[in-house]
């Protein structure tokens, strides 16, 4: 019996094993996740979200029923409880502009030097890779009265409100 015949087989097996193990180790290492496209997706989502707020803010009353200032002014000061929203107009306008995207909206403002952050639209807990965009509006007693909101501002008062939107893809 010639045993020489098994020799190269073993070496071939060893080489094959080595290459396979290398590939496995490389593919298991965390650095090989591909953040490239995921980040591009995030940039895209952030851009779309901030566009949506910008568009609602810049549109005048001929183009949209209520612009961002009017929507915020019309708030009745009640925080939203899931799944109801307390700023329905803004909710409708946003969902028209952002199909397939979920969002939560908070209003942040200073009242008597104290920071208030109130949830007004809740669509659930933010998913993975959510992004936050914000836009500022200034409301006065006049805009609140026109929109019928409950802000109760003084005649000579102006209040800056941050509209903070967290968006994520479903």
């Amino acid at each position, binding site marked *: 019996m*010639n045993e020489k015949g098994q020799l*190269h*087989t073993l070496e*071939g097996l060893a080489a094959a094993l080595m290459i396979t193990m290398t590939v496995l180790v*490389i593919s298991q290492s965390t650095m090989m996740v591909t953040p490239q496209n995921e980040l591009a997706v995030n940039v895209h989502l952030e851009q779309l979200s901030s566009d949506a707020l910008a568009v609602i803010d810049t*549109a005048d009353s*001929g*183009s949209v*029923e209520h612009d961002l200032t009017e929507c915020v002014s019309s708030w009745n000061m009640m925080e939203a409880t899931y799944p109801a929203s307390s700023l329905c107009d803004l909710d409708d306008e946003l969902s028209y502009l952002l199909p397939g995207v979920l969002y939560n909206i908070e209003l942040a403002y200073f009242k008597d030097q104290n920071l208030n952050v109130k949830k007004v639209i809740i669509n659930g807990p933010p998913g993975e890779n959510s992004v936050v965009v914000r836009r500022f509006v200034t409301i006065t007693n006049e805009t609140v009265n026109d929109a019928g909101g409950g802000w109760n501002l003084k005649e000579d008062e102006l209040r800056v409100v941050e509209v903070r939107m967290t968006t994520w893809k479903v």
Partner: protein
Amino acid sequence: MKDESGQIAVDFLLGISLVLIALSFTMQFVPGLFTSGSAGESSLDYTAYRTATILVEDTGWWEHSTGNGTDWETHTSDLMRIGLAVDDEPGTRLTNVPNLISKDKIGQFMLLDESIMVEVLGLYNNVDGSRFAYGYNISITKKGAIINVNNTAITRGTTVPDDQEIAKISRIVLIEHGTTAVLKGDSITSSSSSKATVNITGPFEENITIQLQNLNISGVGPAFVNASLDGAILTQPADMTIYRLEGWDHSPFSGSLNGTDVICFNIDNSLFNMGTEYRIDLEFSNVTFNNTGTSFVNYNNISSPLYEPAYLTVEVWQ
């Protein structure tokens, strides 16, 4: 079995084939692992992002030895940058509004020479000193359909191939779409307590929209009766369409209304061919107009551009 030399080839064959199988398995895996990190595609992403940003947020710029400004649509031979954002005062700084798209700029954008377009927007890649133009498609869509401005479908570039990696960025924009006049409550002038009246001086390139808000309801079952142009009744949908504005949506309007409705009358521009003053009467029942008199508000004095939301999509591929 005295001659054993033939067996050597068999074990060698087995060994080498094992290596080859492992190698081909590796090769199959490896390209899949590395593609998304490759430099070519990421630069596509940036090209798409940059192109969309410039078009939506910038007004563009023209410049020659004696002048410059943002109204490049009237100086296309001295074009430096392409941008579509509206600028009310082309001479002064920082009067542009991002996301608002100008109709005139769109018009010129569609007429631009292909090579200038690729050059100015940087839709090419430099490989070893030679230039390769990217494939691209720039379109403005609404509800999935490409929109028309001045009877031209707003799309540039070629059809998007479906067998290639494509970098795609969409932006939400407001696109100019005719003009509108907003009349609220007591600012509505009227020829009688049930007729809102507006004077209009033609001609117009696009349909006009009269928007009524905060109507003063004075009875049960308030409703719209009819609209007339210099006494002649206008018919739907040939002469005009009526809709309620709900958010961004145009909901159908049946005739009956309530006080919070925003009612829009979109009237065909061909009715105002002459450069003379026309008079529109909008008659309602159970709605009272308080501002009754003989002088009426003029549409041309209070109208502003009407914008509607749309998506500007830039797609780029190798």
